[in-house]
């Protein structure tokens, strides 16, 4: 980890057109303060990779609802009516990806893999334009890795070294996104001296910066 960071030090990293990975599952484990900073920075034309479209008032859905996102890669958009509206209007491109495939495509980039072979999505619209590979008589869909410029993690508790553990189901996409971006910023609710090493889910070299939460709301 490079260090603990404040809002004003995060803003310069945010630029128009970046691809951001945002952790969380229907905003459970989403980095709400980092999302607020993205909104305050006024960046636009973003690509967001997130499990879902969140809500108009919670999660990555707040950035989408403001029209700052040109593309969303997610498994589910049903909880945020603005996503559907912007998509139908033509100002937001949405790539729907089966949730397990989304997780594995993100993991693949972080793990240095060239792609993954999955049976999910075969003989559905998901397989359109994709290579089908038969191994040992079984068909699989070749799915490519997904990477990001910046990963924004939430739901975490950190330590002074930058190690992270996660609270309950807030873990979800956060640890895999931590490895799939050029820059990883985690929002933590608490900083301990040193986490029990057996409990560390994201080791500190995978985290660039930590924002200690509690300053921003909504």
């Amino acid at each position, binding site marked *: 980890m490079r260090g603990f960071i404040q809002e004003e030090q995060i803003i310069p990293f945010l630029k128009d057109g970046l691809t951001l990975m945002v952790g969380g599952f229907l905003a459970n484990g989403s980095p709400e303060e980092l999302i607020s900073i993205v909104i305050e920075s006024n960046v636009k034309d973003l690509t967001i990779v997130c499990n879902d479209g969140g809500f108009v008032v919670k999660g990555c859905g707040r950035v989408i609802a403001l029209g700052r996102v040109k593309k969303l890669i997610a*498994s589910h958009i*049903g909880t945020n009516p603005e996503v559907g509206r912007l998509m139908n209007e033509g100002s937001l491109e949405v790539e729907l990806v089966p949730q397990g495939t989304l*997780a*594995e495509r*993100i993991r693949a980039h972080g793990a240095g893999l060239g792609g993954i072979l999955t049976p*999910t999505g075969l003989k*559905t619209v998901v397989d359109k334009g994709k290579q089908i590979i038969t191994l040992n008589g079984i068909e699989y869909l070749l799915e490519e890795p997904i990477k990001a410029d910046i990963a924004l993690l939430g739901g975490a508790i950190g330590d002074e070294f930058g190690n992270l553990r996660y609270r*309950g*189901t807030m873990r979800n996409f956060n640890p*895999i996104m931590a490895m799939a971006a050029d820059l990883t910023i985690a929002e933590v609710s608490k900083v301990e001296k040193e986490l029990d090493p057996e409990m560390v889910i994201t080791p500190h070299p995978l985290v660039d910066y930590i924002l200690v939460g509690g300053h921003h709301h909504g």
Partner: protein
Amino acid sequence: MDEKVIIAKRIALELKNGDLVNLGIGIPTMVANYLSEDQAVVFQSENGIIGLGPLCEDEEEIVNAGAMGASRVPGGSFFDSATSFAIIRGGHVDVTVLGALEVDAEGSLASWIIPGKKVPGMGGAMDLVVGAKKVIIAMTHTAKGMPKILKKCSLPLTAYHQVNMIVTEMAVIEVKEDGLHLLEINPEYTIDQVIESTEAPLIIENVIPMKGMEV
């Protein structure tokens, strides 16, 4: 009895002691309410928990796949989404219960999009039906009087040929290689009514009254 209750009660009878089970949103969630004391079932939820317990309103750290606060039962654990779907896709979930808009004679289902009308997305459904050992569809038999069990799905598929069982308020149907077998019917309906409400051909051999109908 409410039709949703009929469906949930009947599906509960399919779950065996020790099964790892993933319940979808809607009628599937209700299945958990009708388990007997000797059915020690473990619930998995795709957002990253094994040992999902009853809803818990004020809980923020633990949610179910519908983002509702929930509890964890003793022995339960948390994991990331890649692990969660490795558990699902890797065949470690015994039963998944899901809703559907359409199911067809080949055991294909459509559940995630009505083009031009509603595009919620597939969420984890495509992985669940491909990976779970047994796929049970919980749905009403018809929608506004129109059959939902079709010769061939008209909506974009969630998966091809993955459904094992369909439970509706009218009947229990098993999907086999040769087609749809009518196993049980709700005594409130006749076999002819079930056939009329079903577009797909039904193979009818030994039909018994639907289990779990006793109040």
